[in-house]
């Protein structure tokens, strides 16, 4: 059983314990070498965090901001800006267009699909699959995109409207066509076919592996759906684009992993 004081060491380090707890913990530290050692380490972590360097922002950033201001992509200071989007033309960055990204991802996915088709036909259940991992959860962030409450009045005034990404924007160009894609499009069908292939061979794979794969694919599907909706709300948002591309990349990567697992298991021969 873990030492209950171990969980209080950060609070102690930060001066967050009340006097009674602090004195009790200090007495404990005299007796417990492990807690004393961990406390020392936590102090090092905190010190290192405070000493981290702060490199400057990229040099090209200010010219982009200046250009956005000059081109009228943003409101003048003090103007009511609820209708203003920060996402005008100057935001164009180094990212590929979504169709390009999707095409690239799908090319890999289709190759993976072919590999899976070939490999899974000869596949036997994999051994040594690990149990499902512990699910970690992040902090609660308001799902409506609204600002978290803040204490200082000027910060409350500084809050942006509901969300940058929530500002409806008209879709144009290739992003619009991509954002309009549905699971029925041929590209999505390719992914769907790959899933079907895995489904057909699922009895030959280790159940834990299959469950993990399917759970991850479901999460990734959800993330892609979220990304598409965010992009529909703000087609020029390169941050959203990047996330969507990253999500697609994860999906392809997961499928590739499945292929590799199957390939390795297959090369080990029937069991």
């Amino acid at each position: 059983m873990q030492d209950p004081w171990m969980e209080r060491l950060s609070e102690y380090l930060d001066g967050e314990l009340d006097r009674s707890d602090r004195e009790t913990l200090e007495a404990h530290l005299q007796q417990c070498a492990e807690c004393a050692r961990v406390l020392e380490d936590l102090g090092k972590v905190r010190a290192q965090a405070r000493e981290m360097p702060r490199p400057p922002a990229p040099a090209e950033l200010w010219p982009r901001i200046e250009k956005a201001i000059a081109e009228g992509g943003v409101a003048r200071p003090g103007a009511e800006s609820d209708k203003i989007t920060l996402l005008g033309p100057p935001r164009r960055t180094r990212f590929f267009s979504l169709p390009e990204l999707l095409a690239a991802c799908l090319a890999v996915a289709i190759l993976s699909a072919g590999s899976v088709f070939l490999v899974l036909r000869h596949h036997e259940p994999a051994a040594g699959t690990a149990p499902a991992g512990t699910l970690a959860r992040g902090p609660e962030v308001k799902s409506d995109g609204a600002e978290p409450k803040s204490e200082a009045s000027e910060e409350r005034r500084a809050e942006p409207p509901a969300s940058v990404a929530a500002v409806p924007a008209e879709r144009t160009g290739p992003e619009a066509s991509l954002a309009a894609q549905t699971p029925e499009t041929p590209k999505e069908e390719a992914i769907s076919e790959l899933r079907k292939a895995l489904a057909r061979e699922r009895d030959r794979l280790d159940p834990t592996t299959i469950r993990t794969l399917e759970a991850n694919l479901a999460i990734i599907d959800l993330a892609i759906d979220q990304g598409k909706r965010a992009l529909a709300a703000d087609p020029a948002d390169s941050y959203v684009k990047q996330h969507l591309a990253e999500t697609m990349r994860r999906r392809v990567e997961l499928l590739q992993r499945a292929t590799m697992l199957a390939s390795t298991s297959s090369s080990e021969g029937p069991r």
Partner: protein
Amino acid sequence: MSYSAGGTMTPSQDSEGLPSRYKDREDVALAAGGDVRAFARLYRAHSARIFNLARRMTTNESAVDLTQDIFLRAWEKLGTFRGESAFGTWLHRLAVNVILARRAALRTEWSRISDEEGVLDAVPAKPGPTDLGMDFERAIEHLPDGAKTVFVLYDVEGYQHEEIATMLGISSGTSKAQLHRARMILRRHLTR
């Protein structure tokens, strides 16, 4: 970066010390009137801190666009800044809000994926790469989302648990627990 006794950092100290606060106010007044050069000075004084906040709370790739969004939003909102706090404090809180709102718009459960990808990596036939050489920054990147957010806001940026709890909509106790979790994970990295 400097911290007060309570751990709260005074952002205006970030640039040029106490006089910069007054200089900031002058520039804010000018910029609020549409003076882009004054806004450029504010940018130069504060962009590093904002960029690194964005980088640590999201990713290197996202940080550039986020920083741009934050400063453009600040430009729009300058008229609402009344000087009741340092401009740096106002800007930093605005930045945190923009970053959190953006993340909320793309709310996903990446930490679940990450953990479960680890399951796949654990399969002997497909071992995951070991990266014993990753530095402290990269170790922070790999923290679970909740722990990373609190760690960056508390240990790196100097916010208090009560402020973090308010910003994130969590309890102060949860903030403390996430901070401890982050430190314990990073401790393992440091003691490798």
